[in-house]
């Protein structure tokens, strides 16, 4: 039996399935397997397609040779260089950022208990954009390169998160979800205004670069910039999975969570820290790619239900695959021009989300 066809039939079947998502819960393993296989295949295709087409087998040969440490892959060195030095880091970065932002989306929606929250609701992207704008507009004067851009964006992102944390905690107590959102949104506006002012003072070409950066791109990907995001992603993901049950408990309400023995205030702090760290890293290396962190958790919840362990794992893979394809489209649709990733994430993700939501509504009635 072809599993994808069956998943499809299930998806479009009006019958009620025993899991809270569109997919029956027993299908979760199969879904993960499909996502992994499809994800790897997508990355191979993503590496192969571009101004110079590289056949899938050649991509595999190059990666294999590099993995074994052999100098001769039997592939022309210029092709090998394109695959290994340019395309592969870019595709991996896209996958990391897609996975990272999706995971953060799950965490932040649990943190502020608001389904329309995205990774940037706490103002981290606006914080990052100050550093990025400063380097883009005045970078040549300061003598900073590409790594300086990421470094500056990361530094200002972390600073703004610390600021939001301090302000949201004032008045005592834990992190109140509403207070946190309001603080984050206000901080976002103020920081955006500062960014705009920096851009306004600089020259027009810098303004265009800043806009392009804000919409997100993986064009600056190099091997050297992958390690840190990968490490942070793995740490945060494991941490969040360890907290998955606590996040489930928060669904039942803060008070109920306390009666299950969940340390609610501490969990919120951890979620905030995880969100801030991972978003800051992802924004620093790729710009503020929008919409993924909002829509992927929702798409995944519609498929697998709301249990956070599942949502986190599936969002990681789904986000990675989704972003690899979005990046591929960004590179090829208007070639040789490159479309900013953030434009495509919204154009592709929005309708997909609305479609799935309409399927879900027909099945169990109005949910939200």
């Amino acid at each position, binding site marked *: 039996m072809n599993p994808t066809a069956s998943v499809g039939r299930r998806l479009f079947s009006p019958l009620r399935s025993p899991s809270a998502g569109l997919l029956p819960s027993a299908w979760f393993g199969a879904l993960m397997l499909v996502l992994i296989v499809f994800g790897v295949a997508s990355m191979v295709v993503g590496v192969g397609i571009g101004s110079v087409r590289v056949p899938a087998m050649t991509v595999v040969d190059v990666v294999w040779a590099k993995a074994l440490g052999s100098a001769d892959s039997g592939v022309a060195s210029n092709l090998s260089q394109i695959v290994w030095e340019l395309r592969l880091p870019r595709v991996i970065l896209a996958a990391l950022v897609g996975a990272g932002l999706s995971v953060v989306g799950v965490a932040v929606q649990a943190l502020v208990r608001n389904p329309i929250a995205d990774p940037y609701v706490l103002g981290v992207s606006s914080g990052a954009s100050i550093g990025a704008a400063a380097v883009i507009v005045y970078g040549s004067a300061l003598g900073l390169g590409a790594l300086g851009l990421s470094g500056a964006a990361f530094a200002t992102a972390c600073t703004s998160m610390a600021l939001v944390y301090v302000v949201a905690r004032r008045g005592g107590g834990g992190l109140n979800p509403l207070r946190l959102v309001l603080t984050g949104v206000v901080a976002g506006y103020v920081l955006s205004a500062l960014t705009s002012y920096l851009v306004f003072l600089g020259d027009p070409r810098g303004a265009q670069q800043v806009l392009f950066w804000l919409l997100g791109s993986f064009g600056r990907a190099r091997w050297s910039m992958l390690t840190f995001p990968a490490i942070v992603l793995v740490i945060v993901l494991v941490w969040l999975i360890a907290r998955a049950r606590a996040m489930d408990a928060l669904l039942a*309400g803060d*008070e109920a969570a*306390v*009666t299950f023995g969940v340390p609610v205030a501490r969990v919120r702090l951890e979620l905030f820290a995880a969100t801030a760290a991972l978003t800051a890293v992802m924004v620093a290396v790729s710009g503020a790619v929008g919409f993924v962190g909002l829509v992927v958790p929702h798409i995944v919840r519609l498929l697998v239900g*709301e249990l956070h362990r599942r949502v986190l794992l599936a969002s990681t893979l789904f986000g990675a695959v989704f972003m690899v394809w979005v990046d591929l489209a960004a590179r090829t649709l208007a070639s040789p021009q490159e479309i900013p990733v953030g434009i495509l994430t919204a154009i592709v993700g929005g309708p997909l989300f609305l479609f799935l939501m309409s399927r879900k509504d027909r099945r*169990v009635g109005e949910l939200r």
Partner: protein
Amino acid sequence: MTRTVGVEVHDLALEVGGRMLIDGLSIDVGPGRVVGLVGPNGSGKSSLLRAIYRVLRPARGQVSVGRVPAASMSAKAFARTLAVVAQETPVDVALSVTDMVMLGRIPYQGALSGTSSADRAAAAAALATVDAADLADRTWPTLSGGEKQRVLLARALAQDGQVLVLDEPTNHLDVRHQFDLLRLVRGLEVTTLAALHDFNLAAEFCDDVIVLAAGAVVAAGRPSEVLVDEVVHPLFGVHVDHVRHPRTGALRLLLSAPDDTHDSTAVAGDIPSLTETKEYCP
């Protein structure tokens, strides 16, 4: 049975929003007793319960469960001892009923461990106890109010504790489901403390009743001794008469509005006819 530990509250003081809501309150819920907590709105019933289940931190005094101070227990150990069905119900979570009940197993689970067969068995048993085994595969938003309340009770039972705290568990339930739910609780043989609004339900299902007003205990004891006019009228402004149910012989409380003459010799002739009351109906 080992499932019977009591709950003692000693000299409790609670400050909520800068105001001393409760100051020096002590109650004792004996092991295995089903105790009703009655009192007007704002008398501190919910606050007292929230202090007992550790959502509110006492300004003074102590809550003990099975003679162990609650403050000295870990959050998990406490959740394994005492379970709660609160007023707050999650509205629109896309969890299956089984997943919802499984939340009650959190105090038994490690951070990275999976769901054990003991967890699944406990959840299934809890659902069976509340007569909701057939709901296991439904999703939470599709349940009726009565079904939701039963599932929340099952979730509390899945915690496998020795004490059950209920905050107005019959809210939003129709008459039949109010009876069913409390009969179910009554049959559980766990120490139960329940805030109740309905005197007759309290009289029927509770061993003891504690009457609370302005954060202090006004009366405590058997329902028939406590839910009397001398206690009820000053607090609620309604009169209460005790009668026997004509068929079962059980105690029933008749409530009457304060402007009615409270005179045991009054006759039924004062009851307005249907046509007279019609104009009050919208």
